[in-house]
């Protein structure tokens, strides 16, 4: 294989990963990363680096539309970044130390476990009913004014929302940051779960706010991995570009899908990829 073929294949991988990632709500990196490891033989550090580039590209590409439509809640997002950014710094630093301690294979096994673990997370989120009245605010939420409203196009109604349970949410957000900094994936799934389950935000606001947040968290993790020499742009750039385009396509198609269960067709793909990554980490794959 030569460089031209490599760049094209990486771009196509990103395109498909972005598409599947946005349809399932798992994120493009979740599909792209295992393919890089298994299909292209990319070592774990560079795969994680490519994952973070993918997150940055996707967050900025799809984020512009959300900000324009005022769906992304900057106050809530910024408040929670207090927890995710330190998490990402801790996670990325841990990855650098573990790789230098020759424990990259153990990280691969952990990556596979996280891939499989994200699936129930993504399925769970569809089950959370969208609140129609604002949730009861706690002290921090009241003092910081973590409330807002949005116009729901489908129901032709303006909905008001308020952030609840900010303290446990900060804890989950820290963990989401650690995972995203360590592996370059999954931060979005945990963030959306925390935004919906703890803060009790409507799905649309949670999705848009998480999309803004993964970019900031990704920047924190990426700056550490970049300086550690873990980001190889020859691999990461084609994947990230492809994923951003694929994610845009997927997000356009999603509202048109009548039967949302179509999305779960891709779940076995993620499970198989996760299992393959674990086997690779154990040295049997």
């Amino acid at each position, binding site marked *: *294989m*030569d*460089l*031209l*073929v*490599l*760049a094209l294949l990486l771009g196509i991988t990103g395109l498909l990963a972005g598409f599947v990632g946005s349809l399932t709500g798992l994120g493009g990196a979740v599909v792209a990363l295992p393919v890089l490891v298994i299909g*292209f033989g*990319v*070592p774990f550090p*560079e795969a994680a680096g490519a994952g973070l*580039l993918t997150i*940055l*590209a996707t*967050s*900025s590409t799809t*984020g*512009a539309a959300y*900000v*324009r439509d005022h769906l992304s809640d*900057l106050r809530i997002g*910024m*408040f929670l*970044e*207090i927890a995710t*950014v*330190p998490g*990402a*710094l801790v996670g*990325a*630093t841990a990855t*650098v130390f573990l790789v230098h301690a020759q424990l990259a294979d153990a990280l691969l096994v952990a990556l596979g476990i996280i891939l499989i673990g994200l699936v129930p997370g993504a399925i769970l989120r569809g089950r959370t009913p969208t609140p129609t009245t604002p949730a009861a605010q706690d002290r921090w939420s009241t*003092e*910081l*004014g973590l409330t807002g409203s949005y116009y729901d196009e489908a129901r032709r109604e303006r909905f008001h929302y308020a952030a609840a349970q900010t303290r446990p949410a900060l804890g989950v957000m820290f963990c989401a940051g650690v995972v995203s900094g360590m592996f370059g994936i999954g931060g979005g799934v945990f963030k959306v779960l925390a935004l919906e389950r703890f803060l009790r935000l409507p799905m649309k606001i949670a999705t848009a706010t998480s999309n*803004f947040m993964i*970019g*900031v968290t*990704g*920047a*924190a*993790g*990426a*700056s*550490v991995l*970049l*300086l*550690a*020499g873990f*980001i*190889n*742009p*020859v*691999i*990461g*750039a*084609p994947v*990230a*570009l492809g994923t*951003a385009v694929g994610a845009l396509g997927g997000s356009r198609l999603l509202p048109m899908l009548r039967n949302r269960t179509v999305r779960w067709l891709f779940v076995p793909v993620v499970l198989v990829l996760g299992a393959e990554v674990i086997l690779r980490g154990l040295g049997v794959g």
Partner: protein
Amino acid sequence: MAAVLRVGLYVALALLVGAIVALVAREPASAAASWISSNPLPNYLGLRALAKGLAAGRAEAYLTLGVFALIATPVVRVAAGAITFVRHGERRMGAITITVLALLFVGLLVVGPLVR
């Protein structure tokens, strides 16, 4: 705010696409395996090395700049948010946003160089 995102994104994407195309045009038949196993980026992480590479028209230097732009976009957005909050007299939200910005710089200027 959306404009910050879009400009940063377009600059980053243009740099990355252009540099990848230039790299492939320069060495289309070079072995893929060597590009996977060896990372050109660490050679351009210093400001002087990066400037020299950019001046010499090295695709790898522009690729590195593209990665910087991709990372910088959300950081600029946080900075823009901090200015907005402070301007509207929202002291608490302003303080929170400035803290987030400071933490991002801790990653880039303290944690990153330490693990290098």
